[in-house]
């Protein structure tokens, strides 16, 4: 313990590893919490075991995400993951969003990612410690699974579910 460090920080050190500032920040001030009108992609996810809920709307232009709307309910991990995700999706092609989702899921499953892959995940890296909390993993991936569901339905020609 370095002298001068705040004691309360040290008390919760391991915890801070899970609850990175970015996570708490997004949990407290989730981004893109508006309903997007006339979305191209629209999906809802539900984890009945925790009661977590995520609703997502995406508007595309030239195959790229231009607007994302989010309504989420649940624990900090779910909400922060959803909120940060909406930021990341902006300007991505659907292809790219799915790759991101796969990478994030892999990270959650404790798989070792390359430097480059980690780079792509950007600030989502803040969630890396979640993989040490098996029960919380599905909180973190719920928004991404919801996204993948939405993309799949969009691609199968079904604009709105």
């Amino acid at each position, binding site marked *: 313990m370095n002298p001068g*460090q*705040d004691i*309360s*920080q040290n008390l*919760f050190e*391991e*915890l*801070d*590893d*899970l*609850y990175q*500032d970015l996570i*708490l920040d997004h*949990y*407290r001030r989730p981004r893109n919490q508006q309903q997007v009108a006339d979305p191209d992609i629209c999906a809802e996810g539900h984890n*009945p*075991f*925790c*009661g*977590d809920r995520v609703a997502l709307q995406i508007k595309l232009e030239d195959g790229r995400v231009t607007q994302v709307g989010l309504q989420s*309910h*649940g*624990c*900090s*991990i779910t909400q922060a993951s959803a909120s940060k995700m909406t930021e990341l999706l902006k300007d991505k092609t659907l292809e790219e969003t799915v790759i991101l989702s796969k990478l994030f899921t892999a990270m959650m499953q404790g798989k070792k990612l390359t430097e480059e892959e980690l780079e792509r995940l950007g600030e989502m890296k803040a969630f890396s410690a979640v993989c040490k*909390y098996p*029960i*919380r993993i599905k*909180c973190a991936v719920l928004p991404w699974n919801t996204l993948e569901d939405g993309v799949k339905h969009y691609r199968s020609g079904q604009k709105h579910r």
Partner: protein
Amino acid sequence: MVSIRKDFPILSRQVRGKPLVYLDNAATSQKPRAVIQALSEYYEQHNANVHRAVHTLGQEVTERYEEARQKVADFIGAPAEGIIFTRGTTEAINLVSYTWAEANISPGDEILTTPMEHHSNLLPWQRVAQARGASLKFIPMSPQGTLSLSALDTLLTERTKLVALTHMSNVLGAITPVKEIARRAHEKGALVLVDGAQSVPHIPVDVKDLDCDFLAFSGHKMLAPTGIGVLYVRPQVLETMEPFQLGGEMAREVWLDRATWNDLPIRFEAGTPNIAGAIALGVAVDYLRNLGMERVREHEIQLTGYALVRFQELPNTEVFGPWDTQQRGGIISFCHTGVHSHDLGTFLDHEGVAIRVGHHCAMPLMELLKVSATGRASFYIYNIKAEVDLLVETLQKAIRYFTPGPRRVARPTNS
């Protein structure tokens, strides 16, 4: 009860560098050394299959197994022939649903239960109602867990064949007036099944006093190993029931095309039972009787009363269930308006405090409470006031941790 803590080896364990504070007893209890040793001793000294062995091990084991049945019978004031060993409460209730209910519930009949049942005492009746063309009715209740007994006047009819209800809610801790309900149900000719998963481990239960027809409970919630539980059935009812699972010792004579059944209660124990589990359950019962169930109850009333007071210190925190400790067991479910129970649970775990978080297999009750999950602290004989203090104080820290405000110093980036 402080002195008994040393009987529980796990209580000296550390979790994440902190002493374990185990407050998830409604999910499963910890085990005293005597129970753990009973398992080792069984396997090191006696292990054999039960029933009809001419060899010494087999005789020793059969004797101990039946002795355990007698102990369990005495514990709940029942005759031994009414005690069936099952895997747990869930299997016990399913057994009744597949045997007695299939044979006695007819189209148009009604099964009465409550909205606060554990899934294990709800889903089997949903299945029976659907399979038999019967309907499932619910005794109305307050969010605190008080059942509307006045509604029984209209709910209990000649079509009511079964009242299936919990003796103690595993979420609210509420103790239900089983005796009164049983009396009124019997007046209408209905039988009464009591889910005793939360009551038998924690309060004195006597089936003669309750006058119930079925009582189901789990060993693992009352100091015994996992995989063993009990279904008590009033012998007059048991005699009329067809067997559930078939095979092994439950048959008397078997031909290629037919069979006759063995005596009660063996008829309902198909296959090799959890012999060591049953014997260890007998030891757990000895342990509890030695403490005295009145004292167990008294201890939990004290602890729960203290916890209910201390929980009032927590900001924006709702505590569910009755406030009168005479009407509740040692279970405290709660919700914070701003911090999700999962986050509270994870925070507590980092301080060594184990509580349960979620819907507690009582989703319909969650809906009634208008929550998707609660935190739940539940006590048992080895819990002490200092643990309640730690729980409340850690919850306070947790709430501060997750609530917006500059309570964390900035951390170096990339940490």
